[in-house]
């Protein structure tokens, strides 16, 4: 079987499974109950995408700063990044969000939960992004640095013409994976009553009482965001492969 056909077959298998599950249901399944909440849900989708993009860029910047600190000659910075990374790795995102919104934020005089929620996401993703940079930069061999040195490229030229063009290609796939993590992680911002997708559905559920249907819609919408994203990643990976 060729590759394309295999994918069609795989998708058909999943669809068949879903149809089977649906036909087996005995209780009433009422998706239409959510029609009147479409505005709320659309707002939820928009907000999920918005905070995810902000958190993506925020963590890309912070991750880079942390990467630079982790290769710093000052041992203190290296240690700081290490300790921070250990703590974040063991911290549930939910706890991170609560601590940021209710303890860290107020300590700095900030009570804007929406902003603090996004900051929590950024802090949480920073060590993961740092690692993405680390593996990308380590892929530039010592030999290449020697060649750059030999031809007397300036530090700016090294980054601009040789290092970054290569690193971006390697960075792309794991960065997109992290983006996917951010999108799913943003659901936890519902604890701050932030109207992202998960929260919007929960509000609608509390009025329609159609719980299962609500989760199905939620599921579908998350897939609608993440699948095109991962497809785009694969496309970029193919196009930019070294």
């Amino acid at each position, binding site marked *: 079987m060729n590759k394309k056909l295999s994918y069609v077959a795989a998708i058909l298998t999943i669809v068949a499974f879903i149809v089977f599950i649906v036909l087996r249901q005995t209780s009433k399944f009422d998706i239409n109950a959510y029609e009147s909440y479409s505005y709320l849900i659309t707002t939820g989708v928009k907000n999920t995408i918005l905070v995810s993009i902000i958190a993506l860029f925020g963590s890309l910047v912070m991750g880079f700063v942390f990467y630079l600190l982790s290769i710093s000659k000052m041992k203190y910075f290296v240690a700081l990044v290490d300790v921070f990374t250990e703590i974040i790795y063991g911290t549930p995102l939910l706890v991170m969000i609560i601590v940021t919104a209710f303890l860290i934020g107020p300590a700095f005089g900030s009570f804007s939960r929406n902003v603090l929620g996004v900051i929590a996401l950024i802090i949480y993703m920073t060590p993961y992004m740092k690692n993405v940079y680390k593996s990308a930069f380590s892929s530039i061999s010592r030999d290449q640095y020697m060649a750059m040195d030999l031809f*007397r490229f300036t530090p700016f030229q090294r980054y601009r013409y040789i290092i970054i063009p290569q690193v971006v290609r390697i960075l792309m796939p794991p960065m997109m994976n992290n983006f996917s993590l951010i999108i799913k992680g943003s659901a936890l911002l519902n604890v701050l009553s932030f109207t992202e997708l998960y929260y919007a559905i929960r509000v609608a559920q509390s009025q329609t009482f159609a719980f299962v249907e609500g989760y199905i819609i939620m599921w579908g919408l998350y897939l609608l965001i993440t699948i095109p994203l991962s497809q785009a990643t694969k496309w970029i990976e193919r196009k930019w492969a070294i």
Partner: protein
Amino acid sequence: MKLEIKNLSHTYDVEVIKNINLNLTKYKSIAIIGVSGSGKSTLIRMMSGLEKPSIGEIHVNGMNVFDEEYRKSIGFVFQSHNLFPHLTLKRNISLVLEKTRGFSKEDADKTALKYLELLHLGDQVNKLPKNVSGGQAQRASIARALSINPNIIFLDEPTASLDPILTYEVLTAVEELKGLGKEFIFVTHVMSFVRDFADYVIFMDKGEIVEQGTPEIMDNPKHESFIEFMKKVK
């Protein structure tokens, strides 16, 4: 060329270069030979200013090897081709010329093509390094080294990662460069190439220069380690 090495020593974890002194004035093509781990590559990298010695000084043609002027006047061909993998063969050369030697874009392109053609790569110029053979990549790397119009070209085992046919292809290309009036310092394991191409030979063992002289010393080695080495490479 004038090559002057004074009290050169270098230590990584162990001492890899042990108090080397050298004073050569009239040779144009110097070969450094010896077994793996004898310090050849370290020495050639130091002579090209790519690596700082722990102790000692090297002057080539009157210049300290860390002078910026000297460093811009040399070419270096590495063991592996060391081309930038994201750039085509042509761009690998033109980027260097444009950004570090002040060529205009057109001149850089023209010069890149000229040297790639000189190395018989005229039909490969727009390929990425991964899409050409090891021998072609290494020849492109030689073209890149030549393109900056260096006075001296260093070759550090340029055929180490190539099979015999590609080795022949690359070394033939180097021999063709004889007419360009460049000076060469090179490390290689291919003794026939040393005989053809070098006018001075340095044999190293365990970080020291054990024997040196015109290529004829290879026919009549005196020191035990050199005798042993010549037996093995024959």
